């Protein structure tokens, strides 16, 4: 049996809005290095593929596309790239995948930041580019005005055109970052005392990106990172984003709500690859699930119900509450429909992450569906991707 890829999505105290109130939760530690170090080391103990770190350039909210004024949920975050860098030296094998904004953050800064994460983690960096459609978030920058969208506007041609524009820009952003990573060839640094040259300037490349939204000259100020191209991931719920992922990502996170949808969404992703003329390795498709795990049958569902009475969970991804063995059944069933693995969003931290490590992972191992230990040194290699040739290098 092929092994599943298993990732964990870390955010705040977990994905349930009442998670921070649970016994065992550490709401007062969310803004400390120790909190994140403990979580990522727990994920590494279970030999998980990677952790993703959520981020945003404004507060979390219980309403779509706007801020709320609630004070009874986790609000506030630290910069995800900096959390990733802070935990990198305390771990050795797990992939670390922070989120950044393609709408407001300069692609040049993102390119050097993720490359630097790859250096400090010695080849374990990934990246999740994300659009920032909230008008209130744009007001934090004052550089552009975005339309205020209400849920009633979703699906209107205006709203779709607006998101399509942000996605086109995001595609350009990813292209710039990928070109910057290649803008130094691996052997650009020559240290040639005879000619006094530290660099071979013929192995540094202007990227000369010109797009509708910005132009970037290059080269990067940071040499090519250890992986060449750190792993690029995307969370996608619809065809336009499948196409965005097909153009620029290596791994796509999708949100099926059943086995049939796991198959149909995988087919849609493959169609997007064909439509965009993707070459090279196909996207690795991972299904997202919010998980509540307890060993005793019924206990997880009871816990979720209790949490929902305090503050109900609404989720884009399917919610699972059950035993590790039940979850293993579901994962193997859905993976047979085409998914290469899953990104699990623990409902409550650290409880549901510990249950993944101590319950789910051993269960999958018993069934021959998950690695016993890490084999690969880099995150790309874990997804079967070679260190890529440099787009600017002359063919040998």
């Amino acid at each position, binding site marked *: 049996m092929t092994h599943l890829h298993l990732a964990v999505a870390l955010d705040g105290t977990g994905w349930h809005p009442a998670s921070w109130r649970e016994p065992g939760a550490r709401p007062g530690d969310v803004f400390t290095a120790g909190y994140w170090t403990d979580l990522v080391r727990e994920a590494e103990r279970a030999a998980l593929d990677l952790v993703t770190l959520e981020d945003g350039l404004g507060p979390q909210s219980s309403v779509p596309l706007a801020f709320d004024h609630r004070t009874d949920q986790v609000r506030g975050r630290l910069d995800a790239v900096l959390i990733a*860098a802070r935990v990198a*030296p305390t771990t050795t094998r797990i992939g670390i995948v922070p989120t950044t904004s393609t709408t407001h953050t300069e692609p*040049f800064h993102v390119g050097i930041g993720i490359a630097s994460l790859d250096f400090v983690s010695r080849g374990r960096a990934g990246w999740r580019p994300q659009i920032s459609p909230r008008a209130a978030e744009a007001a934090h920058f004052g550089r552009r005005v975005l339309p205020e969208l209400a849920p009633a506007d979703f699906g209107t041609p205006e709203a779709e055109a607006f998101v399509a524009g942000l996605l086109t820009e995001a595609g350009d952003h990813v292209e710039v970052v990928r070109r910057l990573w290649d803008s130094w060839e691996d052997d650009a640094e020559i240290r040639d005392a005879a000619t006094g040259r530290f660099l071979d300037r013929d192995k540094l490349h202007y990227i000369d990106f010109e797009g509708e939204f910005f132009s970037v000259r290059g080269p990067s100020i940071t040499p090519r990172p250890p992986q060449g191209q750190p792993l690029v991931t995307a969370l996608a719920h619809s065809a336009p984003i499948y196409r965005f992922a097909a153009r620029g990502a290596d791994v796509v996170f999708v949100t099926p709500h059943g086995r049939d949808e796991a198959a149909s969404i995988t087919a849609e992703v493959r169609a997007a690859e064909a439509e965009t003329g993707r070459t090279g390795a196909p996207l690795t498709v991972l299904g997202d699930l919010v998980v509540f795990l307890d060993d005793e049958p019924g206990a997880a569902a009871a816990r979720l119900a209790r949490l929902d009475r305090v503050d109900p969970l609404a989720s884009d991804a399917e919610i699972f509450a059950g035993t590790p063995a039940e979850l293993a059944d579901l994962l193997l069933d859905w993976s047979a429909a085409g998914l290469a693995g899953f990104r699990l969003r623990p409902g409550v931290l650290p409880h549901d992450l510990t249950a993944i490590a101590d319950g789910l992972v051993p269960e999958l191992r018993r069934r021959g569906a998950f690695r016993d230990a890490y084999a690969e040194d880099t995150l790309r290699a874990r997804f079967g991707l070679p260190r890529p040739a440099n787009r600017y290098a002359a063919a040998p």
Partner: protein
Amino acid sequence: MPRQIHLAAHFPGVNNTTVWSDPRSGSQIDFASFVHLARTAERAKFDFFFLAEGLRLRELKGRIHDLDVAGRPESLTVLSALAAVTTHLGLAATVNSTFNEPYEVARRLASLDHLSGGRAAWNVVTSYDAFTGENFRRGGFLDEADRYTRAAEFLRTARELWDSWTDRDLLADPAAGQFVREGAGEFAHHGRHFDIHGRFATPRGPQGHPVIIQAGDSDEGREFAARDADVIFSRHSTLEDGRAFYKDVKSRLAKYGRGPDELKILPAVTYVLGDTDEDAAERAAEIRRAQVSPQTAIAFLEAVWGRDLSGYDPDGPLPDVEPDLGEGVSKGRAQFRGDRAATVRQWRALAEERGLSIRELAIETTARQTFVGTARTVADRIDEFVQTDAADGFIFVPHLTPGGLDDLAEHVVPLLQEKGVFRADYTGPTLRDHLGLGPARTAEETS
């Protein structure tokens, strides 16, 4: 008690100070090099570790400058990783105020402050050049005249964002069902360069505000530092220049209601140790020669002549051709801003008088190392600067990566500790503690 010295370590930069041709010269980009230098600085109880920045590779004559070390990481990312392998050392990032926005810089610095337990510092730099702007959305949008007004408003805005949370706003109280206090993070700034409002989503860091470093030397830069910085990073490394600069800058503090100890003056300096003073002087001369390769000497003259001099013999006399006083050929570094024609005249006179070749002239006019001698000589000299009002301490720029501060840490720092002028151990967890700075002043207090 004698005045206490503050010491910082500068990771070797992208310039010809770094001697990459030395066999001991290691990687300028591998994380292990950063770890080595940071741990050396922490073992020696330094105040902080400093990273410079340049957002475009330098060019000479329209081509990428290939003679010096190049290739560096994003400062904040590497400093956050270094927070994991150090416990007390301050972590100072250079971040440009022209090609960034306050919301993002403020949240990243607050994040570093949280993730390091209160050790973050920000060296606020400005640039205005369209050359660097080609790597960013807005291109070269800023006039030179506006670079300080933007930097000042940028810093004020960042302080407003940090002040948008109080230390009491994070409640995380399940019993009361309240995670944050109502209104935490709300801000509005309506200014000439920034017109922004909303919710700052990162709680106040352990230091309140990170330590602010400023490096400008112009009258405007000095005023900016006197009003708004905690540390000024100067280039006045002789005793006489240092005293004049020190007196000038410290005298500007009173009008902002600040005491003389609230702004630390730390010149960037280099050093060479030897078993005897003569031995050290010999080594210093060798290092200068290694720093100025034949090719570097030609490039050094080209920046002033403003034209291609590659046909000239570096071991021969100065070029007889006249300088091209047009736009200049060097980009992406501090421009040669003096009177180039006068410099050429001076250098010709000096070369004539001393019989210097191109390379010898370049070596002669490149800055000499600040401190050269035995460990005792260097320790005494450092102390003299500080006790006689020429500096509050120094930022050491080593010429080797990553071992360039090992001998300073091992041989000079213990002598300073014996004299009772440098800490034997850290007395607090934060960089503000190391620098003897009080609580951060609010945006209101610095305006």
